[in-house]
Structures are given as structure tokens and as C-alpha cells.
């Protein structure tokens, strides 16, 4: 077998080269992953925090149910549900573009995982932190806002990093509902050009590079947010 990287300069039949198509697909991947990440972080942080609220059994149960629901159904099936079933049951969703439906699917799926991290992070804090906030006369809201969440967030940064990288990789599942992202490109371009190895190598490299970039960004955040004197998990010890 010989290499043929020229394949990327060929016209794909619509006036653009395969290279241009691939870069556009990469932008779709980043768009799907980025938007889903926002949804997942906001919902995940909220749901995860609700699960730790004292004396709010109904909210805790609802939040737990959220996590169990979105964690125990495969992502691909969830995306099919959002794409095919939800618009059928709720007519208002028929006008919603496929991109947004996929973002719901991927975002909520990941939110369950992130909620689990937030819960674990909050519960990993010594009880004394909560009591200290109470002793200061903080309301529940204030103690979460000023004491518990800032500490918990720092503790869970390492697992949040890997969940964010997982989210990026999981965005590949969007191919199943014809979102024009990298995996979709890989499958179609492989079929059209029969240069599967070159195409897959390029796509794989883009995925790996993107995941690595996410990793570096989080490492940077972790470094910036480190509080001297506190030993936070995963950083190899504090001062």
C-alpha cells in the first residue's frame, strides 16, 4: 500500500477540496462539543449541587432521578430520542434544527456525569466547612456560593477535565443523525475516495489534537485557580 495524501486536494464534487470539507467538519465537531459543554456544565453543576442540599428531600430525589435517567441510557439512543421521538411527541420541537437537538442529547447525557462529579466533590469536603459557614451566619445560598462550591470546584477539576475530553470524543456520535462533523466526514470521504487510511489518520489526529487542547486549557485553569496552602486532589500536592 502506498500513501496518497493528494486525496485531500481533490474536489469533492461540490467545488471544495476534501481538506476544506474536513476543516469545516472539524468546526462542526468543535461547535457541537462546545455548545454541549456549556449545557452540560450549567445543568451538571446545578443538578449536582441540588443533590447535596440539606433538608430538601424532594429536590434531592428529583436531581438523583435526573442523573439515573441520563446515565443509564446509551448516548446514541438518547440522541435518537431527541432527534426522532421528541419532535413527534412535542410538535414545538419540529422547528428546532438538528444541531440543537443533538446538543440537548449530548449536553444532558454529560450533565449527569458532571453532576455526579459535583456531588462527589461537595461531599468530599470536610463537614467543618459547612458548619463554619453556618456559624458565620451564612444562608444556605451564601455558604454554597462563598465556601462550598469554590472548594468543591477546585477538587473536581481533574475529573472535569476528563469528562470534558470525553464530551469532545462523544460528539462523534452525532454522525448517526447526519450532523456534518468529523466522523461523518470520515465515513463519507472514505467511501467516496477509497483512501480510508489517509482520511482516518487525519481525522484521528484532529480528534487527538482537540482533546489534548482541552486537557491543556484545564491544566491552565487548574494552575491559575490553585490556592496556596490547600492540597487539592490530583495536583501532586500543594505548598
Amino acid at each position, binding site marked *: *500500500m502506498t500513501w496518497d495524501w493528494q486525496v485531500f486536494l481533490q474536489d469533492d464534487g461540490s467545488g471544495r477540496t476534501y481538506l476544506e470539507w474536513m476543516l469545516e467538519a472539524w468546526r462542526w465537531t468543535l461547535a457541537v462539543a462546545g455548545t454541549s459543554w456549556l449545557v452540560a456544565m450549567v445543568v451538571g453543576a446545578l443538578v449536582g449541587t441540588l443533590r447535596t442540599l440539606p433538608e430538601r428531600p424532594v429536590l434531592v430525589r428529583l436531581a438523583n432521578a435526573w442523573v*439515573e*435517567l441520563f*446515565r*443509564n*441510557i*446509551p*448516548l*446514541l*439512543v*438518547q440522541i*435518537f*430520542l431527541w432527534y*426522532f*421521538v421528541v419532535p*413527534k*411527541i412535542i410538535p414545538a420541537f419540529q422547528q428546532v434544527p438538528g444541531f440543537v437537538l443533538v446538543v440537548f442529547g449530548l449536553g444532558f447525557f454529560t450533565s449527569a456525569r458532571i453532576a455526579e462529579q459535583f456531588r462527589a466533590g461537595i461531599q468530599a469536603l470536610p463537614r467543618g466547612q459547612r458548619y463554619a459557614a453556618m456559624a458565620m451566619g451564612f444562608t444556605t445560598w451564601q455558604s454554597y456560593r462563598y465556601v462550598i462550591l469554590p472548594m468543591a470546584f477546585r477538587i473536581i477539576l481533574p475529573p472535569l477535565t476528563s469528562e470534558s*475530553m470525553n464530551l469532545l*470524543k*462523544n*460528539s*462523534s*456520535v452525532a*454522525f*448517526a443523525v447526519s450532523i456534518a462533523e468529523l*466522523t461523518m466526514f*470520515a*465515513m463519507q470521504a*472514505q467511501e467516496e475516495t477509497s483512501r*480510508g*487510511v489517509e482520511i*482516518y489518520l487525519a*481525522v*484521528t489526529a484532529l*480528534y*487527538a489534537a482537540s*482533546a*489534548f487542547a482541552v486537557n491543556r486549557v484545564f491544566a491552565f485553569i487548574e494552575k491559575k485557580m490553585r490556592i496556596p496552602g490547600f492540597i487539592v486532589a490530583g495536583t501532586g500536592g500543594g505548598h
Partner: protein
Amino acid sequence: MLGLDLAFINWDILQKFVLGGFVFSIELTVIATLGGIFFGTLLALMRLSGKRALTASATFYVNGMRSVPLVMVILWFYLLIPFVIGKPIGAEVSAIITFIAFEAAYFSEIMRAGIQSIPRGQVFAGQALGMTYAQNMRLIILPQAFRNMLPVLLTQTIILFQDTSLVYAIGAYDLLKGFTNAGKIYGRPEEAYLMAAVVYFVICFALSWGVKRLQAKIAIVR
């Protein structure tokens, strides 16, 4: 209800379309778990061996697998296996090989953590008894590591079971495909997806509940 008619799914359809796919999904999960743990343990031992070439190659393999989406790995293997063995291969066989290779990377990280969680004194005790490296691993370290990591290994198996639905990418006939086909043929795709979701949910929810129970049990024994 809501314009859906779930009643179209009856025992006949389940048996004709879904059962075969269900069996394959379970088969794939079990084989990939056992194979993944076996090769994953080998990878973990390589990484902890202290021999630079072994450590480097195992690390390269594990990190490589873990930085690529599973769907891409499935596509890669489906493309490359026929090249290597020189004849076409079925989607199902390709899926089994892919999942073993892919899951080995994830299981190796779990086993590595498990092995490292065993106090050094255990290793020294084995050595003091005159055990070889292999005996020490097989009789002292690995059984304990395996036991400590059992809940994590099972949780990974549940994730693996969910991930088997991704063989959709190469058209292998699994549980999801069974429902999809039934939905297409009977003109009720939405209901079929909903039923698939329910089946996956029930299985995964029950399994994760079981893992939680097991975890509590193990914690008490220790």
C-alpha cells in the same frame, strides 16, 4: 398516548427482530469484558514493569486508544482488519475484536490503580517466601487488586454495555439495531427507539444498583 402506539411491539416481533440483537449485545459485552480485563492486566503489568521499552509501548497504546473516539476506533478496525488478514470480515466479528482492543486500554488503567493500591509489603512478603515474579503476581497481588477493583471493573462493564450500541457505525446487528429494524418494517420508528431506551435503562439501572450493593458488601468485609 401522545400520538405513539407502543402496543405494536409484541412477543413475536421481539423474538424475530430483537432477541438476536440482544444476544449479540450481551455476547459482545461479556467477551469484551473478559478479553479487555485479560489484555488490560497485561498492559498494566507492562506499564509497571520498570522496563523502559515495555512501559513506553504500553503507555503509548493506552493513551492512544483513550484519546480517540470509540466510533473512530470501530471504523479503523473495520477498515484495517481485512487488510491485515487479507479477506473481508463480518461487522460482528470486527466489533468483538475492536471492543477487546479498545476496552483493554480502559481496563488497564483500572488494573494499574488496583495493583498500585496493594501495599508494597505484600510484594516483599511474596519475595521473602521465595516466590518468582509470576507467582507473586498470580497468587498475591492480582487477586487482591482484582477484588479491590471489582466495583470499578463492573461499572466499566456497564459503560461497555452502553457503548456496544455504537456498532451502529458499521451496521452490526445488536440490540439497538434489532429495535431499529422492527421500527422501520412496521412503520413505527419512534416507538421502537423509545422501547430500546427503556430496555437499556432497565438493564443498566439494575446492574448499577447491583454494583452499589456489592460495593457496600465489600466495604463491610474489609
